[in-house]
């Protein structure tokens, strides 16, 4: 599927500026956004030109972060979201978020931003030559085998190895100096999707498309806990968050969603909102469901290593069990089912869904690993900043921060030095009660693509940002 747009760059641009200027999309002073699912600050648009698609090399750039936030807002405005304290607590924002003007602007900016955000997927990986049902079967089994989850003797996805040692990114979290913050950042990335779990899937429940529709519904039925609120996956996810002291209200950690997390979740919303994407979606879901069972067993092991007995990891246990079924059900009934029903016409699209997902998983993992490595070592990056101060370019931008200034997080497109000229500043690189404090004269190295927000810790603080040449590996 290719993304097309009829809007010209300029009309998209001005509609985008008007969309982002809406009160609910403007930054507020709070670092965490409590109890209001409609408040979703986008951050300054700057001079961004969204008419030229982002390349893979620009995946972690500020354009993708901003586009990711706008698209997240756009997709979620066709889901029903209500504040936990009752509608009265945010009635005006409810009216604005779902209102005519915001929806009209949304519909104008969305196609262009989708083209901007997702076109790189088409270019990044050459499509493997898979044409027939047999080839699709062999290709899929080779892919999941390569991802560490080969089919078992019956040809289905394997049972979970609960005793598998924690490895990869889960191990990296446990090895951080601040493992609880790193684990929380991981849970926050999951929360972007899990607090509305299966809402993208819900867009594919309607219509009339044969046996596959009923097969998808069975999976949805599990995701929604058979109509029992306490068994709904989003509910047990909230219990997991609460058990480790994290907020459970939707998008409380809006400022801490990494670029890759936004792009990844938006991808599934895109494919379910634009129904030309349904084949890609079904294949992408198949690939994920197949890998989830062991993935969530590993996540549970990581959480127990970090938080000990206090974590309620039922959400992980549930997925380690039910996704063994979902992997088999999606593979046999959706992926192969659609290929049987619609033939070789749709097989390239199915393959694309898997290739896209592989790439998004790889890029997302790299983004997260880089973020925890940086956020875990802000003191070392403050020393590095001081050492690099003389190598900075002559492009200083200075600003003044006060405790009540609007707060938003962002990423730089080049390595930057953040120098505190006067006062004190807190650096928020992950959600923590103890942000990294910079005093007057301190210089912090912020590598490109690293999410961060600055908050004044004194009545006034002056901060200068300068570019530094990348002559090192940060």
């Amino acid at each position, binding site marked *: 599927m290719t993304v097309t747009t009829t809007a010209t760059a300029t009309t998209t641009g001005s509609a985008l500026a008007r969309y982002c200027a809406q009160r609910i999309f403007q930054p507020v002073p709070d670092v965490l956004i409590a109890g209001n699912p409609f408040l979703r600050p986008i951050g300054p648009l700057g001079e961004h030109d969204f008419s030229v698609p982002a390349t893979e090399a620009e995946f972690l750039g500020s354009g993708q972060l901003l586009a990711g936030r706008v698209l997240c807002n756009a997709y979620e405005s066709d889901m029903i979201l209500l504040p936990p304290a009752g509608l009265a607590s945010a009635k005006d924002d409810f009216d604005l978020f779902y209102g005519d003007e915001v929806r009209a602007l949304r519909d104008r900016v969305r196609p262009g931003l989708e083209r901007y955000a997702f076109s790189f997927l088409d270019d990044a990986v050459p499509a493997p030559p898979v044409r027939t049902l047999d080839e699709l079967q062999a290709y899929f089994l080779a892919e999941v085998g390569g991802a560490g989850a080969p089919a078992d003797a019956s040809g289905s996805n394997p049972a979970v190895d609960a005793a598998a040692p924690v490895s990869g990114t889960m191990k990296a979290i446990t090895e951080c100096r601040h493992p609880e913050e790193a684990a929380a950042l991981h849970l926050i990335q999951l929360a972007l999707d899990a607090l509305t779990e299966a809402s993208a899937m819900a867009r594919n429940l309607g219509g009339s498309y044969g046996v596959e529709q009923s097969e998808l519904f*069975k999976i949805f*039925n599990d995701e929604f806990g058979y109509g029992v609120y306490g068994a709904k996956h989003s509910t047990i996810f909230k219990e997991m968050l609460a058990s480790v002291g994290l907020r459970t209200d939707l998008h409380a950690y809006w400022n801490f969603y990494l670029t890759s997390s936004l792009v990844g979740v938006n991808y599934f919303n895109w494919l379910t909102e634009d129904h030309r994407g349904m084949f890609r979606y079904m294949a992408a879901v198949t690939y994920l469901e197949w890998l989830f069972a062991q993935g969530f067993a590993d996540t549970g092991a990581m959480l127990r290593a970090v938080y000990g007995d206090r974590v309620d990891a039922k959400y992980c246990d549930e997925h380690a069990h039910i996704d063994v079924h979902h992997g*088999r059900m999606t593979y046999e009934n959706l992926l192969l089912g659609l290929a049987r029903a619609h033939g070789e016409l749709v097989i390239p699209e199915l393959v694309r869904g898997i290739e896209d997902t592989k790439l998004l998983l790889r890029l997302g993992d790299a983004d997260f690993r880089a973020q925890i490595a940086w956020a875990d070592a802000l003191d070392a990056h403050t020393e590095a900043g001081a050492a690099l101060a003389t190598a900075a370019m002559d492009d200083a931008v200075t600003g003044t921060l006060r405790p009540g200034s609007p707060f938003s997080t962002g990423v730089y497109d080049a390595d930057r030095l953040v120098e505190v000229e006067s006062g004190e500043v807190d650096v928020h690189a992950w959600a923590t009660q103890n942000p990294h404090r910079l005093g007057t004269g301190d210089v912090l190295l912020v590598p490109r693509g690293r999410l961060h927000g600055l908050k004044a810790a004194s009545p006034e603080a002056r901060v200068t940002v300068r570019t530094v040449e990348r002559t090192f590996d940060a």
Partner: protein
Amino acid sequence: MARVIVMDLSRHNTVMVGHDRYFVLDTGGRAELVRDHCPHRGGPLSLARRTPDGRRLSCPWHGTKVGVAAVRRSRLPMVRSGDEALVVLPDGADAPVSVTHREILANLPPDPTHHDEGAEHG
């Protein structure tokens, strides 16, 4: 005191006792009123198809194969005379009771397109 209902098996094949559903399962020529509830996650066993050997039901939700012998253990005591059946309801059931006719796939011959999938149970 145990509650008893009388149902006409030529017209009805399902009994609702509160939220619990029982359906008439053919267990080797005998009609028994068994609980419509898969031991895995509560899937509707009345919509299960038989495995090729006819001895198990393959649950429509996640494919767990539940032995007919295990399903029989959930049966309600029933005395038949012709199409008329006297059914003893579970103890302490003061829940509303109703009888209906529903589609039951579990009594059909084994599904020729059956894939061997899913876990074993019972």
